[in-house]
């Protein structure tokens, strides 16, 4: 399979609230897709590295999401928890093309 073929179309950018997220349900683990104030899109496994909290339910600020369970702060770009916490949420490649969001799942 080539990379070109594996982009899965997801939704329009407008379907995700600014400073918010949407949940993508998936048998092998849900994915959280985030939108920042300046319309950047990020995707992380919906599982906080701390105690598996649903990151999709957190508050998005800057390029960070705060987990709703114990307020760990996860960097959307890298998936890394902000110090002093240590941990990393898996990232998924996303791209925006003509106002539509695509997710790379084979990654």
């Amino acid at each position, binding site marked *: 399979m080539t990379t070109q073929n594996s982009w899965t179309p997801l939704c329009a950018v407008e379907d995700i*609230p600014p400073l918010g997220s949407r*949940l993508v349900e*998936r*048998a092998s683990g849900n994915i959280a897709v985030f939108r920042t104030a300046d319309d950047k899109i990020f995707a992380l496994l919906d599982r906080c590295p701390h105690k598996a*909290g649903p990151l999709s*339910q957190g*508050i998005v*600020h800057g390029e960070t999401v705060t987990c709703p369970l114990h*307020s760990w702060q996860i960097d959307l770009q890298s998936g890394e928890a902000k110090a002093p916490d240590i941990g990393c949420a898996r990232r998924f490649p996303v791209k925006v093309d003509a106002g539509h969001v695509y997710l790379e799942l084979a990654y």
Partner: protein
Amino acid sequence: MKKSKLVVVGNGMAGIRTIEELLVIAPDMYDITVFGNEPHPNYNRILLSPVLSGEQAFKDIVLNPVSWYQDAGIDLRMGCEISKIDRVQRMVIDSDGNSTPYDRLLLATGSSPFILPIPGKDLKGVISYRDIRDTETMIDTALTKRHAVVIGGGLLGLEAANGLKMRGMDVTVVHLGDWLLERQLDTTAGKLLQQSLEERGLRFLLGQTTSEIIGNDIGEVSAVRFKSGEIIPAELVVMAVGIRPNYALAEAAGIYCNRGIVVSDALQSYDPRIYAVGECVSHRGIAYGLVAPLFEQAKVCANHLAQMGIGRYQGSVLSTKLKVTGIDLFSAGDFMGGDQSEEIVLSDPAGGIYKKLVIKDDQLVGACLYGDTTDGSWYFKLLKEGRKLGELRDHIMFGESSVGDVGVQGQSRASAMQDSDEVCGCNGVCKGTIVKTIKDKGLFTLDDVRKHTKASSSCGSCTGLVEQILLNTVGSSFQETPKTKAICGCTDRNHGEVRKAIRDHKLLTHKAVYDFLEWRTPNGCASCRPAVNYYLLSTWPHEALDDPQSRFINERAHANIQKDGTFSVIPQMKGGVTNSSELRRIADVADKYQIPMVKVTGGQRIDLLGVKKEDLVNVWAELGMNSGHAYGKSIRTVKTCVGMEFCRFGTQNSTQMGIALETMLANMWSPHKVKLAVSGCPRNCAEAGIKDVGVIAVDSGWELYVGGNGGIKTEVAQFLVKVSTAEDVKEYAGAFLQLYREEAYYLDRTVHYIARVGLEYIKQRVVTDTANRKALHERLLYALEGLPDPWAARVKGAQRREFIPLKVIA
């Protein structure tokens, strides 16, 4: 990079404390070698007294076990004495002739007991009281011998005497001064102390000079002779007449000494590569012999060793405690007083209590407490701060708890302390450090706190305080600290300033707030956004728009998130009253959506736990009930008893009153959750005494109480007013809650708000000022007017995408 070499001479409390401080701030800077002439790792010399008296064992007082040195990569040479410092070659030479090079040298050679130069001082059985060996000698002697004489009625002498007495010996204390502890106590307190020690069976000879120690024919001590000619039998003589700094090693190396190794405020000797801390130093002409100053020195010295160059040691104000179980005494500063100063004295010799405070130029300059030392550390703090006493002068003698209005239950001292206040004087640990460590490391036991912070691990006199702090920290994890500081890292503004700006400049959006107040982040963070959202909504109802993305998930989804990511649903049941139709629907919903747990809550409602997020809207639709707001910083419930309708004691219709209040307050957002209760008689079955607003019916009307809290730190609500009609209850309760909504900081419960502004202020605004009360009540009604039930709104389609996943991917 090759590490520098740091050599420490002296394996005692000062030297090792410096290393501990150094390892915290610069863990990888040095290769460290420690020389100690005792065959033990660092132990707590302060606790030799409990070992002597049998209250603790040696292993209990070891501060740093050998494994600690290993873990820290420190080369430890126990039982190894340094005989020479070669400053030219930069190395130390030990008694075996081996040399060890250094880049920096830390001298912490401590002090030695002063031995009176009198005949017989070298006899067997004449010892000092300095280390664990002396202590063991005393313990062994006590097994076989009977008569002990302690020369010196200072702290050490009295502790030795008490320990020997507890080991069963006959003890006489010989003291040159006219009263005991003349450097720590005034005459009155000294006499009280003597009296209580005499009651324990100690004997005292005051104003006596020892002239000779007499031995028997095998060189053992047998008696002591005084200048007066009097002779008393003695099989053990403990000399505790003072200490002398050990500076011979430094002096021999040509380092400038003057009754101690002379150091600067950076604890540096005249050789810039050589530092010194502890009892061996002379700082500004003073050699300290107590532990607290040593630790202050260690902190500064470590900082300079780490080449950070911050911090000056500027000398210490000393305070004293006697570590004799059951005797409480405390002194600090200039406790003797004089012509220039005033004294406040509380004296109850029969009750064994004596307190003297010395005041000069409206400042506390000295304190001497005997029998009740509860407020010792508070006085010590006032003394060190040099604060002007002003009105405090009238109350100061009655202690910290008499000052200010600290709530009905007299908040514990620990919660009133500032973060910068010192808790453990021995180890120099502040409250803030303890709280931070408890939170950061998730500590729950006193032992853990001791391990991580060292607080209360030395003399132990602050143990109670540390326990209180632990309790407060762990117990009130949902109570935010007072909001005097910036809201969060996004801004330097505090809650009050943000709220004022929103009001004064009519800011209506998040962006306007962040721009106007020059937020450092583009759109705040998870701490400030919910607060700003609340301030906008409560200040400009019907004008500012609610921002769901600035709400915590529970308020965004109108349900409570659980640890597995499912939600709980609690429908409104006004006053705890339901009916068969509602119960039937709840049962049907529970079946249909396979809700794993149905539970009755403490607020007289029913909780459906474990609902999937995508089912929420359907669950609400099929329940056909309003939101119970059990998830928000908002009105929660109004708990009621059955009242006069059924109860034979009920004086008013409390259930109906509760329903009326819950109806009035529906959909009300607030700084934190708000709970009410209405009881039909003073038996108070609805537990109104621990609610934000508690209403208790009496025959002639209703009593209103405010600021109660049933959390881990229970707060009893305070009486606000008594009114006669149900309409009055609504008006007064509504006005109080609106005042709270308008003025409290986000995440402050009513109890915190009242603690900040004072109950008198509340009474003035809500009770005395009728016009203001009516205005407040009206503003509340206006703010709530027309607000939709959030569940009904979502059933109709509001915020739909919040509840629907984008796509299911196999």
